[in-house]
């Protein structure tokens, strides 16, 4: 009786994905405890974030891909409207206009876009029955650029890049011609100077400092230098949990959020880093398998994009902390402290589970 009830409750939960996610979240809590200077208050707050996120994941897993497909256009439209709302009436905090006060609560519409964007593009290309023309790709590009432009203006470079990536993955998986991809890469290279001139001063500075962190060791280069020292001094097996001197002695800035990987790398060393990459790889692998087995164009494009976006999160954050990418505000997925990104990530994993568990048996 009880087992049947549980069976029904977890009918749409993918056990492999769930197990790997769960394990990563547990690892994250241990790292957070150390990074926060052993604050149970911080760990408790994160536990609440996780519980909320996992509940929403369960909800998302129980929504069928067909329902999602129908919701794609309205959700995207709402997201764009809210982004325009932010541009016009948004609240400024820390020099950026990202939040919208709806009276009852404040929301960050760019977070909605993280899910709405791939859904919208997947819906769009699914309508093209798998044989999109060059024109379709141009329209797809436009769908991508409007919200990304609005988000870049906020300015929120990290989120804009990740949302562009999630949209680009759909376009790529939908079969964009290789020649166009190559052309775009060359074209983007040519457009770099223009892009450069559009960046805010602090964004430019981050990129300059990436190329040579020592030119400003106390200002903007400080984050990177200290993070790299933390990682390097971790050695092969690390200094041990709660023993990282860089982390515990306050050398590391933002060590519970964007730079938490430096704490992990210092305390668990090369071995820990490789194991964490392995853990992430298992999650990505499962996501790609789900994408390849998906039954509709919408579902497979969406599953592929969600998985590759998760990878991009992890790669950009770890790359930034280990000093090979510029400092952009991207948290380490499933590990960094924070509720908003945890929620949008878990909803996207819920969608993956939904795609995997709502399959109909068909002869192939």
């Amino acid at each position, binding site marked *: 009786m009880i087992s049947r009830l549980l069976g029904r409750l977890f009918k749409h939960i993918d056990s492999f994905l769930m197990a790997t996610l769960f394990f990563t979240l547990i690892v994250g809590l241990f790292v957070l405890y150390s990074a926060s200077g052993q604050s149970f208050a911080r760990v408790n707050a994160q536990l609440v974030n996780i519980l909320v996120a996992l509940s929403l994941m369960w909800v998302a897993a129980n929504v069928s891909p067909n329902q999602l497909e129908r919701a794609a256009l309205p959700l995207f439209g709402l997201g764009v409207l809210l982004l325009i709302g932010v541009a016009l009436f948004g609240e400024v905090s820390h020099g950026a206009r990202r939040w919208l006060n709806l009276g009852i609560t404040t929301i960050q519409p760019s977070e909605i876009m993280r899910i709405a964007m791939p859904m919208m593009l997947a819906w769009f290309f699914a309508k093209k029955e798998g044989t999109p023309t060059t024109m379709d790709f141009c329209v797809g590009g436009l769908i991508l650029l409007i919200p990304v432009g609005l988000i870049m203006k906020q300015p929120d470079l990290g989120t804009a890049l990740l949302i562009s990536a999630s949209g680009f993955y759909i376009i*790529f998986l939908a079969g964009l011609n290789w020649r166009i991809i190559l052309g775009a890469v060359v074209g983007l290279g040519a457009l770099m100077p223009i892009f450069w001139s559009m960046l805010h001063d602090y964004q430019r500075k981050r990129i300059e400092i990436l190329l040579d962190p020592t030119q400003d060791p106390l200002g903007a280069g400080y984050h990177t230098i200290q993070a790299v020292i933390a990682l390097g001094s971790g050695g092969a097996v690390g200094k041990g949990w709660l023993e990282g001197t860089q982390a515990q*002695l306050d050398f590391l800035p933002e060590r519970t959020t964007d730079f938490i990987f430096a704490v992990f790398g210092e305390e668990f060393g090369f071995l820990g880093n490789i194991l964490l*990459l392995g853990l992430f790889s298992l999650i990505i692998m499962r996501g790609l398998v789900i994408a390849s087995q998906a039954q509709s164009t919408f579902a*497979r494009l969406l599953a592929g994009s969600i998985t590759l976006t998760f990878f991009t999160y992890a790669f950009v954050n*770890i790359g930034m902390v*280990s000093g*090979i990418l510029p400092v952009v505000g991207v948290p380490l997925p499933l590990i960094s402290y924070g509720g908003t990104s945890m929620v949008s990530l878990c909803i996207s994993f819920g969608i993956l589970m939904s795609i995997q568990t709502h399959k109909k048996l068909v002869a192939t």
Partner: protein
Amino acid sequence: MRAELKNYQHEQYYFKIRLAFAAIFVVTLFSVLAVRFFYLQISHYDHYQTLAENNRISLVPIVPNRGLILDRNGVVLAHNFFVYTLEITPAKVKDMEATIAALSQLVEVSSLDRKRFKKFREQSHSFESVPIRTHLNEVEAAKFAVNHYRFPGVEIKSRLFRHYPLGKLGAHMVGYIGRINDKDLISLEKSGGLSNYKGSDHIGKSGVEQYYESHLHGTTGFQQVEIDADGHAVRVLSSTPPVPGDNLILSADSKLQAIAEEAFGDYRGALVAINPKTGEVLSYVSQPTFDPNLFVDGIDVENWKLLNESIDKPLVNRPLRGIYPPGSTFKPFVALAGLEEGKREPPFAIQDAGYFTLPNSAHRYRDWKVGGHGVVDMQRAITISCDTFFYGLAMELGIDKLTSFVRHFGFGRKSGIDIHGEIEGLLPTPEWKMRRFKQKWYPGETVITGIGQGYTLVTPLQLAQATAILANGGVAIQPRIVTQIQKAITGERQIIPPVVQDKVILNAANIAIVKQGMIDVTLPGGTAASVGANAGYSIAAKTGTAQVIGIKQNEKYNESTMNERHLDHALFIAYAPAEDPTIAIAIIVENGRHGGSTAGPIARKVMDYYLLGKMPLVAVAPNPIDSATNHLVEEVQHD
């Protein structure tokens, strides 16, 4: 159908090829990361290991100066000074016992210091430095400096210490600071203020030190320093200066405070004096008091036991947290309720036989005067404190009307004073009794509420505030201890304006009756005639006594045979000058027996100084203004 199927398979085939590319992309980029890890953590491990050990650049917080607390004339009540402390970072010390033993050869380390060090060490992380000795003199500091090389992980630091130059004076109002504990950390983290406390060891724990913590603390600055291999700062690279905390200017006058505290003698109790027009708290006494300087450095067990276990309860903030039955001081408010509700039109008078009985009951509610007062009207009932008059009045008003009227005078609710921890007291209602005791309300309980006995409980602050509201003709102004906040750097002052909380519309003729009754209290024939004698200004007042233990129906209250702590509490409320009041006072003297004889004279001393600048005949504490002056503060106008 067939073409569609083919198309579908075709599409899936291409999708899987793209997916394979994506997988290769993932593996490639993760490999790049793995190579980067190998480069940093394996092949260049030694390099980064050295860098981490001698981390050249360190961010050192600079703790801001805590704001000063000054009385209305600029007399310093709390300030800071630098002391040398000897501190140990446990993580850097291999053999703690041996290190402390060796240190004690150089500078004196008492067993108290060791105990405190042990306590602090348990509360902090091993990477934080913990003081083993404070208040090092220059000889000790020099001795250690010469031998510094022998003690890795031990350092001399210069820290700011809080000091309360007037010691016990006004301790319950000023409050004190103490070391930041786990509870403080959690609330700081919740409020988002934690990063501002890097390097801070202390936080306000009580009084205005606690209430105005965010103003007093200031903003922490940072210094980026280059550090040598031993962890010593070599060179300052850049620095953001701290912003010192704001100074607080209190409405209290330390001289008046000294007079008031001295006037209590050995009695326990509380006094609150308020300017009814502005809400300024002029004096705030809780006796006995304590020396807040004991808490700054972490109080030791012996002193803590002495304070905490004393039956005199010196740590209890009596004006705020002491609850007492209001006794007869409640009568002017009941009288006003009776007049305003139309239950007692002016010529009304009773023939007092010395007791009151309810219909169909033999129980006698006795007047304090055996045989009664004869013919008594409202005004005289207040002047002579006739119980019988108020028993009947309360009965006719009923408990609901009575409590809802006096609530306008601040009874049964918090006054909103700027000290945390205030309690509400109690205005009983039948609903409250049902909730609390699951019992119905009896008429007899209404009867005794009329003379401030029974369940009714007030704090001295509430009583003072009620008196101030009465003096102010029904306008309630929130009581305030801090009246000005001063920026430390510019000296610019922000004046906190009076806040009107409530305004009850009262009939002028009714107020006049109650006020005249209270003025007569301090004239010959009143219960506190001695208090008004030769004052030179008119005083409106009311005396009261509150029973500590119940007296049985046929028992006699005999002062001479009773335990001192079972004697009645003496209460006294007053305001002056009666025509245009600038001071309202409430006093409670625990076990002081009669309001007129023990509490009244205290009020007189306070009012004499406040209104006439007259010092009491008996010498009080030395003039605090001579011992401490502050140049930042200009003269404050006395109003």
